[in-house]
């Protein structure tokens, strides 16, 4: 296994710098502890590990959605855990989240769901439904839907989409606000292999185009190696893998799942 110490300690220019992060959910055994890593601007970081290894929890900590027991998270140059609610919201205008499923509000139209991606930029009742939304918001949302190839489904109810279409809509919602850093937690977990490949290719084409920093998780080793610049492997509360993707082979991952 290749350990690359050079990828650590770039905190100064990093979009995300995590130090000494620990989380236990109040239980005796920590989910993880003493985690240090940094993600450079425009980099794609793949996070892998067995079920329950703590990937989703780590991602939530990075956005301050849950508070860790210890450690610091510098997100886009600010210590998000130390910020008050308003400053934290202001910081999150530059971030976004794509999760694996149940991501959209089922009873609303695709277009309304995508417009909701703009709520961090400008809130208020006009943004609650596409019918009332300002023309500019509708235009931006339609452009985002066009980029993911489902502009024709804008007025369809979100619960009437296929798995692949609904992931496209979720990606459009995450991109519509032109974030600087995106978190994608198993973005293709509920999709068949072909659709999953398509979604990953689309997602990374769009984020590479705009230079968005990405942290994503996947249970598919080839996705981690293909789309990640760097791979972190979480096991037993620490990083068992921390290396550049090109330095890794699929066999290196086997120990994560033992």
């Amino acid at each position, binding site marked *: 296994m290749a350990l690359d110490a050079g990828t650590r300690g770039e905190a100064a220019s990093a979009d995300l710098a995590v130090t000494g992060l620990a989380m236990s959910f109040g239980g005796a055994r920590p989910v993880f502890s003493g985690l240090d890593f940094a993600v450079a601007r425009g980099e794609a970081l793949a996070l892998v590990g067995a079920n329950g290894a703590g990937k989703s929890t780590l991602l939530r900590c990075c956005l301050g959605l849950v508070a860790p027991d210890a450690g610091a998270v510098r997100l886009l140059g600010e210590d998000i855990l130390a910020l008050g609610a308003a400053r*934290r919201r202001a910081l999150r205008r530059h971030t976004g989240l794509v999760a694996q499923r149940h*991501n959209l*509000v089922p009873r609303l139209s695709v277009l*309304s769901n995508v417009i909701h*991606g703009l709520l*961090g930029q400008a*809130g*208020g009742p006009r*943004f609650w439904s596409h019918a009332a939304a300002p023309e500019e918001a509708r235009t931006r949302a339609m452009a985002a839907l066009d980029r993911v190839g489902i502009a024709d489904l804008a007025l369809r109810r979100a619960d009437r989409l296929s798995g692949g279409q609904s992931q496209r809509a*979720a990606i459009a919602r995450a991109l519509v606000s032109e974030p600087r850093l995106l978190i994608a937690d198993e973005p293709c977990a509920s999709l068949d292999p072909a659709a999953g490949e398509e979604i990953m290719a689309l997602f990374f084409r769009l984020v590479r185009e705009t230079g968005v920093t990405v942290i994503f998780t996947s249970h598919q080793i080839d996705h981690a190696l293909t789309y990640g610049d760097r791979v972190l492997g979480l096991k037993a509360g620490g990083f068992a893998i921390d290396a550049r993707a090109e330095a890794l082979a699929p066999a290196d991952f086997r120990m994560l799942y033992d």
Partner: protein
Amino acid sequence: MTDAALSPARLARPSALSFLGYAAGAMILVWALEGAGFSLDKALASGPRLADFLSRAWPPATERLPSLSWKMVETLQIAVAGAALGVVLSVPFALLAARGVLVGPAVNAAVRAVLGFIRAVPDLAWALVFVVAVGLGPFAGMLAIMMDTLGFCARFFADDMENVDKGPAEALEATGAKKLDIAATAIIPAAMPAFVSTSLFGLEKAVRSSTILGLVGAGGIGIELKVGFDLFDYQTAMTVILMIAVVVIAVEQVGAVVRRRIIGVEQ
């Protein structure tokens, strides 16, 4: 023959503690019956009296149907208006009572306590209070129904909001959306079918309550029931009882159909 050792005992021997529990339960029941003035003699003697009442109440006073129907319409107006205002008022209360939606746990607990108090006061007691506050008549009844609906719907709306999938809300939180915007776009729309179902239960409850508000002068057909019994006009009283039963059952049936359709649409 089966091995006796493998066959478990059919009855477990009660422990001393559970025996004490049964004994205490029996004593409480006897004590309660005593306090309730239970009398076998009276219960047996009631048969002929009931038969007498029924013979004097039958046939129902059909000639009074038109005027009673107008009173029933007023009853339904009280129920619909009170339930509608109660449902609308329930939304802000529920937003404050639902954990993890708008406000912190201390406010959640305080609002839930207020709602618990509103629920604990019986509808007739609310009616009496509003008769004092706004005078006799249907407006007092409507306010009583509104309070009753608020206590019921706000609590269950809050539970409905706590139970929706939190995925979409988290995705919006990650973009810096405000809590009120998240509630309006990711939580309330997802809870809407549950809201409608809860509201229909609220309306059914309101119709049932509104029929007896008249007993305390708060409007509706209940006053006819009271006058019927006070004047020994049992035929009118019987007519009112039957009308109430028909209307309440009809509203429950309609509610069940609507609820089934809403849930059906969701699948």
